Each structure stands twice: as structure tokens, then as C-alpha cells.
């Protein structure tokens, strides 16, 4: 028989579980304090998509997103986790409404932060209009929650990445943590290749995809604030760190963010490839960045990566 797994502590289990590989439910179970998660509108309520049956497609009882509340190191948090394997984690009407509702609840209460575990290819094609509306509603709900002092933290490290409307929502968050396999962008590799040609972007060149959209690049660019190793415990620690770091939000902060992005564009717009950007940022042997182990990369990013605490 195989070795029993009972004697392992929750932290050890979380450390030994790949965030990339885990389901949305497992991520939440291991991210939060053990046994603290309480789901809102759980699968037994069967709030499924009203659109998929029209296309003769299978539904999922939670419509691909798990929302609820729990505790992180004893303090209450609201959480939402997308299931990247169900329709690529894409936003549909119900899926989006669950997240909007969670953010509005956070705004009403005002003091409980929100963690969003993104894992999404964007908007579900079969419910495009409802999905696009959901993205806009969620972006507004994020900004409204932040403007009354709620911290909204994005955690990105799932198989479907954080694309399309998900990338837009992530851009509205107070702070982001990302792991190496996590990806953040609006247009996906295939979309770019289809629209601009393979010479512009070869979507099958996975090294190119990851050094352009992957976690390490996003961390070095300052788009993500913390780099997590690919396990749930590291994401838990990253979330705690970010909750401690995020300061008050207001118009000044938005202006600073605008300036940070404008400055980035000025400095780096002539770079052809991510490696050129890393070189421009002062990294010696930039071509070796993708091969760096997590601890060495974190040390490098802490030295080089530009994060403006005044911005976002």
C-alpha cells in the first residue's frame, strides 16, 4: 500500500500542492485557514448558465467560479476562485454576477479584503454580450470597493492564465501576485498570431509566450507586485504580504499609476523582445532569466523590479 497522507500538516500540504495544477476548490481549501471556507451560492443551488443549454453544451453547477468567505491567518477575507478547466475559466453571465456580488458585498462592509484567484481565458464566446457586460460590472465593482478602502488582491498562476477581460480586471486590482507559469495579458497568443501574423507572434513558441506574458516578465515589469513559487502555500504567504503592503487608494494613486505606465512606455517602447527589456532594466545575462530558480529570481526581482508603492 502507499504511504498514508494523514500526518501532513495543512501548511505542508499547501506547500506540496502545485497552484497551477490544483482545482479552484483545492486552491481555496489550502489557501485559507483550515476549515474556514464557507461558500456562497454553492453547487447544490445549481445556479448554472442560462445560455449553455442553447448551444447544447454541458453546464457546471457552480458555473466555473467558487465564491465565499474564509479566514487568512485568523482575519476574514472574501474569496473568488475561477476554475480554469471549465470552459477555460471564461466569464459568463452567472459566473460574472457571482464575482460582482462578492465585490459589492465587500464594498458594503468596507473592511474585509477580497482575494481573486484568476484562471481565465476571458469572456465565454457563447454568452459574449452578457460576459462583456459582466467584465465592465466587475471592473466598476473593483474600483468602487477599492475607493471605500477595500483591498482587492489578484492571485495568478493557473493553467488558463489571466487573459481578455480577466487581464483588464487584474489591472484594476490593488496588487497582484503571480507565479512563473501564470500569464497576464489581454490578447492571447493565438489572437495576436491570427490578427497580426506568425511573424509578429508565433503562438506555438512557448518560450516566447512565457517571456512575453509569463509571471517572471510581469514581475520584472512591475505589473505584478510579488512573485510566488508555484505552490499554494507560497500564494498564501504572497496574499498575506500584499495585504500588509497595500496602502490607501485615491485619485493621486491612479495618477501615479498612469505616470508609471507612461514612463514605462517611454523607456521601453523600442525594445523588440522581453530579453531586450530585461537588459534595458540592467539585468546582466538577461537571456538566463527564464531558467532562474524561484529563489534566485525573487532576489533579482527585489533588486531590479520596479514597483511603485505610490501607484496602482
Amino acid at each position, binding site marked *: *500500500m*502507499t*504511504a498514508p*497522507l494523514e500526518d501532513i500538516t495543512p501548511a505542508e500540504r499547501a506547500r*506540496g500542492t*502545485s497552484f*497551477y*495544477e490544483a482545482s479552484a476548490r483545492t486552491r481555496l481549501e489550502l489557501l485559507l485557514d483550515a476549515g474556514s471556507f464557507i461558500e456562497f451560492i454553492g453547487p447544490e443551488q445549481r445556479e448554472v448558465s442560462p445560455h449553455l443549454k442553447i448551444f447544447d453544451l454541458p453546464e457546471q453547477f457552480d458555473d466555473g467560479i467558487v465564491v465565499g468567505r474564509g479566514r487568512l491567518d485568523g482575519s476574514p477575507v472574501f474569496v473568488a476562485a475561477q476554475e480554469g478547466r471549465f470552459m477555460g475559466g471564461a466569464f459568463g453571465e452567472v459566473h460574472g454576477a457571482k464575482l460582482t456580488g462578492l465585490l459589492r458585498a465587500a464594498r458594503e462592509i468596507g473592511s474585509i479584503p477580497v482575494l481573486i484567484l484568476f484562471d481565465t481565458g476571458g469572456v465565454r464566446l457563447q454568452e459574449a454580450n452578457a460576459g462583456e457586460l459582466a467584465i465592465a460590472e466587475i471592473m466598476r465593482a473593483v474600483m468602487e470597493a477599492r475607493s471605500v478602502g477595500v483591498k482587492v488582491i489578484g492571485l495568478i498562476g493557473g493553467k488558463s492564465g489571466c487573459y481578455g477581460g480577466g487581464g483588464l480586471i487584474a489591472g484594476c486590482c490593488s496588487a497582484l501576485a503571480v507565479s*512563473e*507559469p501564470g500569464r497576464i495579458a489581454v490578447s492571447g497568443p493565438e489572437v495576436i498570431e491570427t490578427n497580426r501574423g506568425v511573424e509578429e507572434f508565433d503562438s*506555438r*513558441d*512557448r*518560450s*516566447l509566450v*512565457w517571456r512575453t506574458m*509569463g509571471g*517572471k516578465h510581469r514581475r520584472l515589469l512591475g505589473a505584478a507586485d510579488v512573485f510566488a513559487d*508555484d505552490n499554494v502555500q507560497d500564494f498564501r504567504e504572497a496574499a498575506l504580504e500584499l495585504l500588509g503592503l497595500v496602502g490607501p487608494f485615491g485619485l493621486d494613486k491612479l495618477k501615479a499609476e498612469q505616470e508609471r505606465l507612461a514612463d514605462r512606455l517611454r523607456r521601453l517602447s523600442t525594445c523588440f523582445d522581453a530579453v531586450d527589456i530585461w537588459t534595458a532594466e540592467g539585468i546582466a545575462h538577461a537571456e538566463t532569466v*527564464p*531558467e532562474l*530558480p524561484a529563489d534566485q529570481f525573487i532576489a533579482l526581482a527585489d533588486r531590479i523590479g520596479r514597483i511603485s508603492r505610490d501607484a496602482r
Partner: protein
Amino acid sequence: MTVIETTGASPGLDCGGEARRGAKAMTSWQTNRATRDGRISAGAVLARGKIVEARDATRLLEAVIRPGDRVCLEGDNQKQADLLSRALLAADLSRINDLHMVQSGVVLPEHLDLFDRGVAKRLDYAYSGPQSARIARMLFGGKIELGAVHTYLELFARYFIDLTPQVALIAAVSADRDGNLYTGPNTEDTPTVVEATAFKDGIVIAQVNDIVETVPRVDIPADRVHFIVKSGKPFFVEPLFTRDPAAITEGQILTAMLAIKGIYAPYGVQRLNHGIGFSTAAIELLLPTFGERLGLKGRIATHFALNPHPALIPAIETGWVRQIHSFGSEVGMDDYIRARSDVYFTGPDGSLRSNRAFCQTAGLYACDMFIGSTLQIDLQGNSSTVTTSRIAGFGGAPNMGADARGRRHPSEPWLKAGAEADPDGATLMRRGRKLVVQIGETFGDKNVPLFVERLDALELAEKLNLELAPIMIYGDDVTHIVTEEGVANLLLCRTAQEREQAIRGVAGYTDVGRRRDHSMVAHLRERGVIRRPEDLGINPLDADRSQLAARSIKDLVRWSGGLYAPPSKFRNW
């Protein structure tokens, strides 16, 4: 199908001219040599020494090759002489046509374009994985005159008997000015092809990535090489043996656990070959975890005839594997192999030396077990990877997955298997048996059943009017079938009916499985012919991905200490 053929340099053409020049008609015994010298002179016009510019490659081939020649275009399931195949495809049809291609692999689109254009007409080959659909269409359409589909070793054998090439077009990493070749980690078929061609008055043309002052090691001596074409870029190599651990399913893990505990352990299998499927990759990744807990380290899976599978890195790093001989290399594994020369065969330069013919022979004679997956298994245990619209060829699997009737040395698993098959035979006179294991899930991709009443290969043979259905492994060679439902030991079956029910008894919910005789299957289980997970002390709920020593390509890179450099298509960093 097999036809004994005369060589292209037929006495009627070349010999006649010489005879007229002589005072009286006499037999010449060196016409082939004279022909070869003529071909070399014709090609030499385009060469500086032996070196020909890439832009002149087609002209070189037009000078050297004659209509109807038997040409070996090097390429197998891994490396390809891609520049030379493109050059041949561009040939003037009035100078080169109706060639008889003899080659391990029909893999590149150009390989079939040759037949579409009429450059080539007849084909003898072994493997056609990526072109399996198109080659089937062309065979149906009569575009290709098929000699036979072979196993690698069988085709190599025929290079020396009745399919000897007049011209070989090969691929190497580098050459020196004299023509010594370095074939590097992917040596593969080159020594065999060159041996058969150069020593029988044929012409050898090599494409090389680079021309260097001194080659790192001499894989092919210069006097067997007639022309060298410098390619602008490295020859193509397919990373065929890389299985991403991220794609291994719970069902494959369960099946792998059953194989380890139900076959590897009781027979004590130390010398073996693995196929390339995900089930065998799962076995490789379970050795340092599940296998370790069973106390099997050092007792199983120590010596392999196997390509450098990245999935075996954790087992190597934890000291399970003592020695591996390889058919070819694997993209990204070169630095790791170089650093683990105690395990792999390496040259004085430090890089892998692979050799397909020797490794196939090793798999046939020196391994006690072959374990691999297939697409279809029938009620007698015959297996095939042919479907009605695809002909993938055989490659090497049948050489591994066949009892070697010429084997004479004993070993524990071989004798035990022999005794199970013939318990009443006289001990000193009883042959052993190689363990030939077919492993797979009862339903494959797109829920296609693994078990069938009748193989698609039979329908194909009828449609194409073949004399022999393309069977990958014959039922009488198969000793075990493993699925997620259990292990069937066919060695213990005494009648055809028992054998059929043993197969149905592990065929799960396929039509074949649901039509089992339940009482007979229960009886076979009591006798240990069929063993379920619970009979082996395995709980299917324990078969989860946390059991794998590596769950991603990145994990394999970590296990290798950063020495494994996977190709871009397998990265997510």
C-alpha cells in the same frame, strides 16, 4: 510482396558496353565498381574535394543518381536528412525518376511529395507516424508502389540482402575536409546505412550542419563518404520521446501501479524496453515513489534498451537505473547525458553514441520485457496501430515485442515466464519466454475502445490487397495485458477460450469487456490469471498525481539539476 530484385546497374546496360570494347565477349565482375566510379566523377565536377555547396545539392543528385535507382534517404522517427530530401524533390524529372526509396521513416511531407511528383515510384519503409493519413491515401490511390512495411531491424537486414542502396543520402552534425563524419548524439541509423551502401559500391552523400577542422569524434570514416553538402541549419530532429508529466492521468497512474506491482515485482524484471506512451512514462515516474515504498529499488528496472526519456530522470537521479543503451537521442537531453556517462553510452568527446540497429538487437535479445501501448487489441491478443485511414508503420516495437526464438541465455524472468507457459515441460529443455506486455486504458483518445472483435488492420489489408495484415504484435507473443481494470496473464491460459475471457476480463466497459462470461472471468481471477487492483493491494483512490516523482517538465528540469533543456514546445516558463 517480397520481390528479389536486380540492382539498377544491370549487366544489360553497363556490361554490354565494356564487352564490345574487349577483343572478345567476357564477363566483367566489377561493373558495379565501375558504375560507382563513373557516378563519383560526374559528381566531382560540382565539388571542391568532397564538399559541395548547398545551392548545388540538386545538381549533385542529378549527376549521381540514375532513373530507377534504389535510394536510401536517411530519416527515422527522430532525425531527418531534410536538406537532401528537399534537394531530391527539386530534381529534373528527365534525369531522376521512378526511384525505389528504401528508408526507415516516411516522416517529412517531402518524403511523400517525391511520389506525387514522380521522382520516386516504389517504397520499402518501417515507420510513417506523422504521415500516416497521407500515406494511406496515396497507397489507396496507387501513387506508391509498396514493397513492404518493415520493422527497423528487418529493413536494415534487407539493406544487406536484397534492398542494398545504390545511393545513400545521410545526415551528420559535422565533417572535416577529408569527409570524416561526426553524427553526434543522434547517430541512429547512419552507420548501418553507410555500411550497406559504401561496401557494396554505392555512393554516400552527407548533409552536415558544419564543416570543421577536426571532428569531435569519428562516427563514420572518410573513406565511406563521397560527397558532403553543408547545410545552412541543423538537420531536423523530432522530440518524439518527451512525455509531459502534466498530461498523465489518474487512470494511467493506476495502470502503471498495477504493472509495477503485478508484473515488474513478481518477475523481478531488470532488463527491459519501454514504449513511448503516457502509461510507461507514468511507470518511470512512479519508480522513485511507489516503487521505492515497495522496496523494489535495485530489483527491477536497472538496465534499459531505451532512448533518453526525460521521464526517467528522477529514477536515474535516485539510483534506480544502472545502464541505458539508446536507439537515438532526445532533444534537450544532451548535457544531461554527457554528465551521466556512468548510465549512458558516450564517445571520447563525451556526447551520446546511439545506434538504432544495435539497440534494436539489444531489445530483441538482451531484454526480458517489452512494455508498450497500442491502439487496438483483438480477442486473441493481436495488436495493431493501424486504423482504416492511417498507416503508422511498425518502427521498432515488434523487435522488442517478440519472443526471440534464437535466445539461449537464461535469466530469472525469462525462465519463470517459460515455466508458467509450460508447467509440465522438462526443466532443462524448456525455452524461457520474453515478457511482452501491452499496457493501456480500456478507452483511448475520444473514447475509442482499445479492445475490438476484429482489428481494422484486416480491413485495410483487404482494401489494399496485401498478403499480410499489418499486425504490430502477434497474440502468441503477448504475455500480459494491463488496463485500469487489472492484469491478465496470458501465459497461464490453457485454452483459446480462457485466453479470450482473460482479455475480456480486463477490457472494462468496452463492448468486448461487457460481453464477458462472468463466471469464467471469476474463475480466472481465482486462479490468478486475472488480478484486480484489490488482489494486488492497490486502492484505485490512491492513484493520484501526487504519486508522480515529477508532475511537470519543470520538475524534470529541477531533478536534472538544470542539465535537461526541454524544447520550447514543452515549456511554460
